[in-house]
């Protein structure tokens, strides 16, 4: 990247989540221009009295959804970037440890019995953490854990839960439950409500903050184990901390909006192509890019057509060509 471009670009990435959030708050069947959106947004403080419909649309419908998209985008991107460093593999994603299918199983299972979204969320979170527990305990051999064992156990645990999800779908009632489960698995932010995101967002936020604070250590974790150890860090403990923080984020995301693919791979790569390998830059840049990307995608999902398009379809449809373009242009970014 040219030096003259670096500073304006960085400023843009910092501001991007705020700009996209305000723009996208106004987009939809009830349209508001950005200035009006801001006036409505600050009306509780400024004494400005907007139309009741505007208040309802912004605060009850769009704001929770956009907040959710911001956090999910930032969270999955940061978790992806962290896993790529942790496993020293640019193809690692937030579901490398089997957490995504673990959480999906919990959610699908609960959807058989209830439509209470809070319960679905709690179950997804619990089984996501359970999947992490499985993966880490399977990969422990004689008290030692190697990265390759972690990746392999992650694959095993993932396919195990994938099979369980299929089982749940198979036994589900075909008229009501199956569509609900299938739709849920495809990922959507449409179920978000303030009360729903209040449970999940703090968990995502905590995970992001932990990973941001440890961003320089992530560089060291990507070295050989002996090398990392000899630089004075406790590799075992640090790896576990990164895995737990990333799992909290991933499970929480899945619990609120189902499976959202691609973001955890796409965004860190884009960040690396722009800023190189140093996680001190990659992690914060992933927050900015990931959150704004997700808001734009989700706005497209709800506003492009009369019906809602599942988010994971869009992330793949928009993400894949964009990714190909980036790869062709820069020759790919190494870790």
């Amino acid at each position, binding site marked *: 990247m040219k030096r003259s471009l670096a500073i304006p670009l960085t400023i843009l990435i910092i501001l991007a989540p705020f700009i996209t959030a305000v723009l996208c708050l106004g987009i939809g069947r009830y349209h508001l221009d950005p200035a009006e959106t801001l006036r409505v947004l600050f009306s509780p403080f400024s004494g400005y009295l907007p139309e009741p419909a505007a208040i309802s649309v912004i605060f009850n419908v769009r704001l929770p959804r956009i907040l959710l998209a911001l956090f999910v985008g930032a969270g999955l991107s940061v978790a992806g970037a962290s896993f790529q460093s942790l496993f*020293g593999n640019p193809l690692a994603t937030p579901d490398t440890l089997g957490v995504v299918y673990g959480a999906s199983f919990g959610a699908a299972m609960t959807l058989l019995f209830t439509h209470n979204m809070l319960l679905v969320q709690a179950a997804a979170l619990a089984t996501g953490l359970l999947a992490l527990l499985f993966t880490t305990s399977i990969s422990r051999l004689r008290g030692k854990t190697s990265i390759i064992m972690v990746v392999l156990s992650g694959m095993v645990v993932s396919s195990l839960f994938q099979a369980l999800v299929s089982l749940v779908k198979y036994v589900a009632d075909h008229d009501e439950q199956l569509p609900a489960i299938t739709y849920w698995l495809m990922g959507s932010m449409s179920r978000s409500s303030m009360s729903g995101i209040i449970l999940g967002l703090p968990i995502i936020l905590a995970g992001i903050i932990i990973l941001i*604070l*440890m*961003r*320089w*250590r992530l*560089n*060291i974790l*990507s*070295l*050989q184990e*002996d*090398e990392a*150890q*000899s*630089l*004075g*860090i*406790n590799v075992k403990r*640090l790896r576990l901390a990164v895995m737990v923080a990333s799992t909290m984020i991933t499970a929480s995301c899945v619990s609120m909006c189902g499976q959202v693919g691609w973001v955890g791979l796409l965004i860190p790569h884009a960040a690396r192509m722009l800023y*190189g*390998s*140093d996680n*001190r830059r990659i992690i914060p840049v992933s927050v900015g890019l990931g959150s704004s990307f997700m808001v734009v995608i989700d706005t497209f999902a709800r506003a492009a057509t009369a019906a809602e398009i599942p988010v994971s379809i869009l992330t793949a449809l928009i993400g894949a060509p964009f990714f190909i373009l980036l790869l062709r242009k820069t020759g790919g*970014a*190494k*870790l």
Partner: protein
Amino acid sequence: MNFSVRKGFFSYGNTPILRDVSFSVAPQEVLAVLGPNGVGKTTLLRCMMGLLRWKSGETLIDGTAINRMSHAELWRRIAYVPQSKGTALSYSAADMVLMGRSARLGLFAQPAAEDRRIAAAAMEQVGIRHLGSKKCSEMSGGELQMVLIARALAAKPQLLVLDEPESNLDFKNQLIILDTIRRLSREQGIAAIVNTHYPAHALKIADKALILNREGQSLYGPAAQVINEENMGRAFSVQVKIQDFLYEQQCFKSVIPIAVIS
């Protein structure tokens, strides 16, 4: 600082690798570890630094066993330069060297200006200031090795442990690495333990030598005494001649392999 190993013993399963290894190094001293391929030189380094656990015996720093020291405490004193097999990681040299500060920073801390200054000074010390922004994945073997040494120095260690630092390098780079190790130990008072395949290199820079044999036995003593034709022959199963070569009042030792002893 005095670094010593007392009666170190290590085995993989029932196969003993190292038996009754003892040695010590003091500031300004260089210890060379010699032995044939696969005899356990790297294992010795890993054991003595606590990366592998001794089956019996112990490593002491100034009389304190290292397994009673905290992680950070240990790695502020010892810095390890692993065998550089090339890396796919594309961190810049400056970022790589900066990682050497890790043992001196808290878990959530980010390196500050002071750390960057120390890292830059370490690069200056080994003469690679100009490499600052070059990516590690694009470096030659010699450049990467110097970056790893600079990274070790950035921790301001009292003991430098190097695993075959001059293997895979051409003559000139070998000479640069050897001279750097010698100079660091003389000028900065850093002790050094160096694994090497080359007896001549050991004779050139080491004060002491430890020779590992196939049967797990070891020989330890002043380099000039221990590295002789007989011991080399036994350790490597090669008939060896050691010759002095005088050039401008300086004595260079050359070690010439004659024939394999069957």
